[in-house]
């Protein structure tokens, strides 16, 4: 026990020495002084004179200072103590130069903060595994038909059944079908929900476990009773996360349904799902034409995505041979679920990650430059310390400590900025940013920030160290107050500034291209006028409208009621909203008096819209008429086509009066086109549906009174307050049916903004980075030139004394600045050209090497560089020759 206590005491002493080094030093001094006094006293008692005793005592002791140092060292805390001393000293040095410190820390914080924010998003979206068992084995299966220009289409239940039974590369394959429904509470307040119907093995295929209750049982397939599994978010929102919901019954579209489980919060596939319901219908329904289900599969252990693709293509080929009428040209594409979820966000995020990396590099170069500038001023201090015996390693440590302090400060501030940045990113993020819920700062990000800041600290700390510690101390002392500025130091600083300018130019070129591309997108003709249009979705359950006629009648009455509301000038509805997210249907068609060559398999998007749709959106009618009240179910079918359709199939002839035949199409459970023959009565301008970038595809519009789609989006043109209108519309709907909900209310402007959001996101961020980079680079130019001016005061003084006028001096300094800018320009342009491939996929209507953008950015860079040189140049002309030369 006692030995342990003795050891602990030793440790305690060490700690005390650490926390109170001054007192420990004082104690040692006291102890040694006491010894010398005692020795002196003894010597005097032996008869020596006072001064002799003093001398001899010290000789016998042998080097008071040396032993004091050794005694202190023997405490064994020297390394830590020195470190703390370094930190203290470093903090003092930084505090002495607050402007320098603030600029350096803020610069680093910007770089580190931007990287933290972007890396957080990138990590959550691109790097984290999906929340499923063995997520890399999960594949999405799409149908594909190149003749009909369908890349990722859905699958019919019959085809899916053949896939599931006939493949050799998947362990499991499930179908799902996202749709919507209405959950009613007892108080009659309906909630629209996103439902996903799935085959009963869906959760096993994904490897997703329930949080409460269970997932579907293997006997809950075709012919069984439908049961519901809740998504975590919906469970929390709607049922207050009450676990007793399992086993209870909810009312979905008027039908009671038992809740059997709740899934885990991370399970959000498909992303919008509120609840999952088992498919209780057999797969041998409808025809192979009816392609409306999606499919997900899990690869067997030894299979690969390529093997699965080949397997499925072969299988689809066999199905096609057996069913040439329905499956001609239809094959299968297999893509990994992860790639599909991340999608084209990957490219955009990687561009941003590159950009933030560049910003960080610029920030580092800036701080290195600041440190270099300052180190010139400190060269004398360092030299003196070296001369007094400070070890080189000790000085290196001191300087490194200072840069680590700076980067540490930058990291702390940067982390705060990064946290804000992530919030900001999510606020401006496109609604489609995948896996948004999973995005947050975490330990991994913190670790990366830590590593980044230490590495940056060491990196930018190395430059001045190389300059100072390895420099020749003799010349430094001899030079006195004049700088030790050697050609090497000069070159290093200039290289940093040129590098900064080049990186900034690359960023600003990227930003400029995106801005131009974005403005191109803004000017795209959508084919409609978004201002003053309100949209709202609704979905009629079979309990409210049991059959097609009832659906048509319901929407007709609703439309009439809304048309008379105050402020409403036009009202229509559409199965698919332009630029909305709902599914668009494309199908083959045939015409009464026209044969098409087989290679031009006639095909168009089918778009049922109610009378008033084109008026509400102000889509121009190019010839003929659009739908009106006359186009009822009991009268002949009529259709309207778009310009793209006329271009593709009419070769310039007038389509009006031509007839479609054999087109009684049924959209699965969603509704149907209720005529089989349709006469073309009009042509409308092309309207963008599938994003702003894509060309408009041929489309046929059908009247809402002759088609019975249950799910529609109301399109209401109005004047005045949209809020009041929404209330009025809810009232009108309530009079028709208390159990149908009006959801997803937004203006057409919002829809348009949504379609632009991803481009806006990238453009906004890259512009921000571009501005930051430009700012940092101009600070760099300014710093170097301003410093050079102070260094060259003597020279300037001599020149002016010899008759150079202020203009010459100004030109000289501006020339220095311009040389740096031009070097940066050349390097940056080369870099921008080299990196142009990274951005090209993000651009619309502009090349990645657009000369106009390159030229204007080059102009901006020169202007900024010159502006940054102006102040130092002006300062140089203020030099008083007499003062300057006396200082020499």
């Amino acid at each position, binding site marked *: 026990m006692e030995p342990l206590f*003795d050891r602990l005491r030793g440790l305690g002493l060490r700690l005390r020495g650490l926390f109170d080094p001054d007192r420990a030093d004082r104690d040692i001094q006291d102890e040694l002084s*006491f*010894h010398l006094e005692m*020795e002196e006293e003894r010597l005097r008692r032996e008869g020596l004179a006072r001064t002799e005793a003093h001398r001899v005592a010290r000789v016998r*002791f042998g080097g*008071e200072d040396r032993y*004091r140092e*050794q005694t202190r060292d023997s405490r064994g805390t020297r390394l830590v103590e020195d470190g703390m001393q370094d930190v203290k000293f470093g903090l003092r040095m930084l505090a002495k130069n607050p402007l320098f410190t603030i600029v350096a820390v803020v610069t680093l914080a910007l770089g580190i903060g931007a990287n933290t924010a972007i890396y957080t998003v990138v990590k959550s979206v691109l790097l984290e595994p999906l929340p499923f068992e063995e997520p890399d084995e999960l594949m999405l299966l799409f149908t594909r038909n190149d003749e009909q220009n369908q890349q990722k289409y859905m699958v019919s239940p019959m085809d899916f059944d053949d896939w599931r039974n006939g493949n050799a590369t998947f362990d499991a394959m499930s179908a799902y079908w996202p749709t919507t429904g209405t959950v009613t509470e007892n108080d009659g307040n309906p909630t629209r929900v996103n439902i996903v119907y799935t085959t009963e093995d869906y959760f096993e295929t994904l490897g997703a476990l329930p949080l409460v209750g269970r997932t579907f049982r293997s006997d809950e397939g075709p012919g069984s009773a439908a049961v519901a599994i809740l998504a975590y978010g919906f469970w929390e929102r709607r049922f207050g996360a009450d676990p007793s919901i399992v086993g209870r019954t909810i009312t979905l579209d008027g039908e009671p349904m038992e809740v059997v489980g709740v899934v885990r919060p991370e399970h959000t596939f498909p992303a919008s799902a509120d609840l999952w319901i088992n498919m209780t219908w057999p797969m041998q329904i409808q025809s192979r034409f009816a392609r409306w289900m999606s499919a997900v599969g899990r690869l067997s252990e030894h299979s690969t995505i390529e093997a699965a693709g080949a397997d499925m293509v072969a299988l689809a080929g066999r199905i096609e041979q057996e069913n040439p009428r329905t499956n001609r040209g239809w094959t299968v594409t297999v893509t990994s679920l992860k790639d599909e979820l991340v999608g084209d966000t990957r490219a955009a995020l990687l561009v941003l990650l590159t950009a933030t990396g560049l910003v960080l590099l610029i920030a580092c170069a800036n701080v290195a430059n600041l440190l270099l500038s300052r180190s010139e001023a400190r060269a004398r201090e360092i030299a003196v310390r070296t001369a007094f015996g400070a070890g080189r390693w000790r000085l290196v440590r001191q300087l490194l400590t200072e840069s680590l302090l700076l980067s540490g400060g930058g990291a702390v501030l940067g982390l705060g900025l990064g946290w804000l940045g992530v919030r900001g990113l999510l606020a401006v993020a496109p609604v489609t940013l995948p896996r948004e819920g999973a995005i947050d700062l975490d330990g991994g990000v913190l670790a990366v920030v830590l590593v980044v800041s230490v590495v940056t600290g060491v990196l930018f700390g190395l430059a001045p160290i190389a300059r100072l510690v390895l420099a020749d101390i003799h010349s430094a002392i001899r030079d006195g107050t004049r700088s030790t500025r050697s050609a090497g130091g000069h070159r290093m600083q200039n290289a940093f500034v040129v590098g900064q300018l080049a990186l900034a130019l690359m960023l600003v070129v990227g930003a400029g291209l995106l801005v131009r591309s974005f403005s191109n997108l803004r000017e795209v003709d959508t084919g409609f006028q978004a201002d003053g249009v309100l949209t709202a979705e609704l979905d009629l359950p079979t309990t409210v409208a049991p059959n097609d006629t009832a659906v048509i009648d319901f929407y007709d009455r609703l439309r009439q009621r809304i048309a008379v509301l105050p402020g409403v000038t036009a009202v229509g509805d559409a199965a698919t909203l332009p630029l909305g997210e709902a599914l668009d249907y494309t199908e083959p068609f045939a015409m009464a008096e026209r044969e098409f060559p087989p290679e031009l398999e006639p095909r168009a998007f089918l778009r049922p819209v109610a009378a008033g749709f084109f008026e509400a959106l102000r889509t121009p009618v190019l010839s003929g008429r659009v739908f009106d009240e006359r186009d009822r179910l009991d009268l002949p079918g009529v259709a309207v086509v778009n310009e793209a359709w006329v271009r593709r199939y009419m070769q310039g002839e007038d389509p009006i009066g031509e007839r479609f035949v054999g087109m009684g199409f049924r959209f699965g459970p969603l509704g149907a086109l209720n005529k089989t023959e349709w006469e073309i009565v009009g042509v409308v301008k092309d309207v963008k549906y599938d994003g702003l970038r894509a060309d408009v595809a041929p489309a046929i519009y059908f009247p809402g009174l002759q088609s019975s789609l249950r799910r529609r989006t109301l399109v209401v043109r109005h004047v005045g307050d949209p809020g009041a209108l929404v209330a009025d519309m809810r009232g009108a709907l309530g009079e028709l049916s208390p159990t149908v909900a009006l959801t997803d209310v937004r203006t057409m402007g919002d829809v348009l903004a949504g379609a632009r959001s991803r481009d806006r996101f990238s453009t906004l961020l890259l512009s921000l980075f571009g501005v930051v980079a430009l700012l940092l680079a101009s600070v760099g130019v300014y710093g170097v030139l301003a410093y050079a001016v102070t260094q060259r005061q003597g020279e300037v003084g001599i020149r002016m004394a010899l008759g150079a006028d202020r203009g010459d001096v100004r030109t000289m300094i501006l020339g220095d600045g311009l040389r740096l800018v031009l070097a940066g320009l050349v390097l940056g342009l080369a870099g921008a050209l080299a990196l142009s491939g990274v951005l090209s996929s993000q651009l619309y209507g502009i090349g990645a090497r657009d000369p106009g953008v390159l030229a204007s950015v080059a102009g901006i860079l020169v202007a900024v560089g010159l502006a940054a040189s102006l102040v130092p140049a002006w300062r140089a002309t203020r030099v008083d020759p007499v003062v300057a030369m006396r200082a020499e």
Partner: protein
Amino acid sequence: MTQARADLLQGTLEMLILKTLQVGEPMHGWGVAVRIQQLSEQVLQVNQGSLYPALHRLEHKGWIRSEWGVSENNRRAKFYRLTALGLRQLGEEHAQWDLFTGAVGRILHAT
């Protein structure tokens, strides 16, 4: 070679300090120095200053402990005392030393 001798001396000095303090009553650094000189009959002449790094090292190993007190001439002084751990250490070093010197002696006296 020089290094090895220094280490030997250092180790030896530490052992001598422990031995000096074994007497029992707390001693200050000067006292230890004087006692070593007296006991060795002036043979061992070390720089008195080298005592202090050794004392502090020993204290941090927990072999001796110190206390500030008042010296015989009424001055503030630091007194050292052997700890139990130090006593055990002294025993070990003593045995080692005997072994070492015995071996060296046998070699030197061999004919």
